[in-house]
């Protein structure tokens, strides 16, 4: 029997599903469960009873952050899918909650599973019968791996291109180190390694920057904020009600932070969205007071992540609306045309900077779903690319990979500093490359040799 480490992955298709499952397999499954779960039921003999559902809450082990409430079930080896101890964590199905939960498992000691690894383990542990049925569907219709891959392929494409650029200095450095090792009599100058050090330092800081963009953590902890803007009669309050009343949304009322603004936090498929409505201005008088309200709302503009600009779709565009739109600066806005049940009168071409247009009718609950999907997609699916086209790191898996690459390079620099022998430098570089390779594709031995022989005049 071989001792394997413990792996974790999201086991349900990503997106707006009802529940999400994170699956953990390996010897540490139970201890991971204990670290991140606190349940209402008594745990028997300090452990979870096998094959039994426990209800409770999931916390992140690093900061104690409450992730969600949900269920836990432990299936002890060998009565499990992989024939190892398997832990399943069921939570609300939103992408962010599920990935946060996965992140918690990793923080508690699991390693992110490679694609197909659960199935592989099931097979390697000699699980025949069920493996056929389940795992093939697992891989092919592929709740786990493939949908993950599909959902991520876009993200990955972009990230991969950025990483490919980081990879080349690493390969150059490795080729140098390897040439220096393997051709001691071929006049490979160890000093040239110094020349790549700067480039490696640059790679490190690029990785750091990428890691800083890891949105999930920030988004999950703080949520995103959406500001409703529009003239009083544009239909903000009905929209707010419609949004907070959405079936899928879980509402929690927070007291307004300022006297004039109302904040509601809704969870869109697991994404906490703080909706700020300049509702306070409604209780005031018209004209000058309205100007004041708009001013206060505009103060908020800079700190909002997205603005919903509401315009009464049944009326022609007013100059104030256009003025408002032009005052939004860099904050992206979505044009929401309310009262879409009435005849459409707006010339939308005038709002050329809008990131999208969503006709809704709060009254008849038309378009609300599209609007929530739009908001969700905007923050989650498309958060790959920031406005200036820089790749962002948005999944736990990617962050994990980049972290590994980063720490290998840190070790490289340290080893370089203390004059460690080149074979250790090589190992650090190889580990960094192989981590990046999980996104960009492997560096083959041949590729490396190609580089060695084309860069150095070597051999006899």
């Amino acid at each position, binding site marked *: 029997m071989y001792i394997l480490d413990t792996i974790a992955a999201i086991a349900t298709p990503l997106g707006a599903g009802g529940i999400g499952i994170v699956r953990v397999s390996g010897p540490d499954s139970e201890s991971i469960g204990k670290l991140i779960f606190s349940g209402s039921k008594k745990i028997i003999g300090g452990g979870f009873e096998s094959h039994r559902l426990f209800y409770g809450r999931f916390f992140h082990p690093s900061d104690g952050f409450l992730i969600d409430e949900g269920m836990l079930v432990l299936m002890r080896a060998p009565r499990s899918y992989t024939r190892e101890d398997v832990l399943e964590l069921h939570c609300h199905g939103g992408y962010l909650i599920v990935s946060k939960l996965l992140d918690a498992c990793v923080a508690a000691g699991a390693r992110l599973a490679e694609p197909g690894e659960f199935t592989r383990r099931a*097979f390697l542990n000699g699980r025949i019968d069920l493996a*056929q049925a389940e795992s093939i569907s697992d891989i092919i219709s592929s709740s786990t791996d493939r949908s993950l891959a599909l959902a991520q392929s876009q993200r990955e494409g972009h990230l991969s291109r950025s990483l490919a650029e980081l990879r080349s200095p690493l390969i150059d450095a490795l080729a140098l180190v390897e040439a220096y090792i393997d051709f*001691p009599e071929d006049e490979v100058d160890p000093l040239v390694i110094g020349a790549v050090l700067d480039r490696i330092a640059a790679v490190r800081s690029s990785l750091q920057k990428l890691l800083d963009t890891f949105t999930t953590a920030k988004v999950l902890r703080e949520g995103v904020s959406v500001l409703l803007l529009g003239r009083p009669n544009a239909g903000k309050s009905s929209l707010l009600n419609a949004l907070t009343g959405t079936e899928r949304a879980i509402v929690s009322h927070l007291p307004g932070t300022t006297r004039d603004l109302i904040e509601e936090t809704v969870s869109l498929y697991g994404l906490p969205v703080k909706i700020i409505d300049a509702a306070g201005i409604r209780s005031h008088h018209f004209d000058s007071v309205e100007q004041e309200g708009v001013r206060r709302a505009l103060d908020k503009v800079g700190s909002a992540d997205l603005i919903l600009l509401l315009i009464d779709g049944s009326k022609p565009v007013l100059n104030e609306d256009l003025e408002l739109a032009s005052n939004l600066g860099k904050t992206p806005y979505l044009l929401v045309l309310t009262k879409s049940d009435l005849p459409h009168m707006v010339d939308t071409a005038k709002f050329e900077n809008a990131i999208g247009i969503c006709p809704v009718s709060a009254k008849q609950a038309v378009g609300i779903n599209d609007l929530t999907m739009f908001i969700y997609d905007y923050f989650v699916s498309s958060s790959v690319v920031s406005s200036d086209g820089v790749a962002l790191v948005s999944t736990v898996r990617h962050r994990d990979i980049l972290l590994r690459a980063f720490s290998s390079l840190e070790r490289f620099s340290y080893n370089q500093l203390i004059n460690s022998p080149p074979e250790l430098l090589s190992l650090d570089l190889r580990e960094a490359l192989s981590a990046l390779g999980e996104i960009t594709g492997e560096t083959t031995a041949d590729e490396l040799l190609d580089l060695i022989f084309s860069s150095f005049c070597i051999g006899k």
Partner: protein
Amino acid sequence: MHCYETKYDVIVVGAGHAGCEAALAPARMGCLTLLLNMSLDGMAVMSCNPSIGGLAKGHLVREIDALGGEMAKNIDATGIQFRVLNTRKGPAVRAGRAQADKQLYRLRMKYVLEHQDNLHVKQGEVTALYMQGDELMGVDTRSGIRFIGRTVILTTGTFMRGLIHIGLINYPGGRAGDLPSAGLSDDLRGLGFDVGRLKTGTPARLDGRTIDFSRLEAQYSDDNPVPFSFSTKRITMPQIPCYIAYTNSKTHEIIRSGLDRSPLYSGVIEGIGPRYCPSIEDKIVRFPEKERHQTFIEPEGLETVEYYPSGMSSSLPIDIQIAFYRSMEGLEKVEMMRPAYGIEYDYVNPIQLHATLETKLIKNLFHAGQINGTSGYEEAAGQGLLAGINAALRVKGKEPVRFARHESYIGVMVDDLVTLGVKEPYRMFTSRAEHRLLLREDNADIRLRDLGYRLGLVDEDTYSDFCNKKDEINKELERIKVTRIGLTPVEKEWCSHHDCKDIQKGTTLDQILRRPEIGYDQLQEIDQISKELTKEVREQVEIQIKYQGYISRQMEQIERMRKQEEVRIPEEFDYNNIPGLTLEVQEKLKRYKPDTLGQAARIEGITPAAVAIVAVMLKSRGEQKVES
């Protein structure tokens, strides 16, 4: 055809570096073995450079020795300059290299072969395999004798359809001065083997009496030559120097002027040459900015005046050769004794082999050495040994051995060959081994001695020496783990002397040894017992301690891959109609026919998901057998 009366267990075709090991191993394992070579004067000939070892190659030689092969002992007995390379780098990438007296090397090996029990050495050129239907029965020779054998190992080197090039002149030859082997590769092609063409080259041999050595820099042997074999106590051969010379702009000009008559640049040579062993014309074309190229002028032996200018191989015409060698400082008056030449030869695609080196097409047929697309004596010998062992195990009805990538360079090499195939002559580099820190010269015995002993290739005395050494190492590792420093005034003084004042009372010796600035040389100043340890034990312990973190990281990786690595895919496994596998992946797998899931995963373009699917299909089709 006259059918020879003796029936052999193992027939080895070719007595090059692969063939010699391939014949000795089964004979030593008790199998009646026949070794056939085109000429009995040409056994264990060093066709090219007069040296053994170097980076990664030295590692191979040590592994061969640990397993009970002959190469290490042969070079120890006939080497005339021993050096350890990379002494300033870490132990994993240190390697021995020795210049050989070429004739003595060949003669000593011939002696060993001739005096080996169970081994018949005969002259004869094999022209075809003798088959009955699908079954391999033996070999046919040009002189009309048919030999019957249960297994056959082909180690034909550069000889099959060898074609020698000097400028635009070319003629058939297996090596300068030797006939080529004709017919055999056509026979193999007829049997379904994928026969291709490769190319390599060798420099001229120069007359030492016409070289002005006083103007060249000499390079001497190490003061205490380190032998290759774990059993050799001391190197007794006289040690002589090599010399370093350089090309210059004049040389380069001459070479450029001859390129139009180079068979390579004019397209006469079709075979693919090695990138790492470029001819001098290659170097000059590819690196025009380089002002000079270095060459080591190496003696070919103690009694001969022939010298080998390494790195100066060429297939340029004779007039250009003479002129460019003479353009170098110290070589102005040099006489060329043998011209440089290039050679093209037939090889068989190694993806048609199992990791045991048995062919996938014909049972009981093994290929080893340059025929598999490798180049180099050590690479050849390593494969020869493995093929010899597995032929013997087949004869004895035992399970074959396979070497894992994390166990030996032989394992890395064979896996690379049979999993990926070759596109150019394959040479071993340490960079090919992903577990390089584990695969060191110094621990080759710890990795492989047990196996060699179990196979019957390592004798009792050698083995018990080895066991003692291993015990000593383990004892010492244990001791330093529990011995703590008391920080007496003397020890305190020692700490500050060695710049490690931060050492606390109660620190164990292994923790102290882990520090980069401390080794046994320092430790023994305060630790009496370490003075009494042998050099080997100190070396092993120190390396293990210093590399520890890295080694355990590598071990974890290996452990993780292990299960997949060992799952076997049956030969007849059908990749058609596997749902989820793309057509491209199916085609690849059908072509490469990996033996294990681990191999499948290493084939370019095979994704982890594809491997998982194959794994599942293996199970569900009930076709999978895990071999223990």
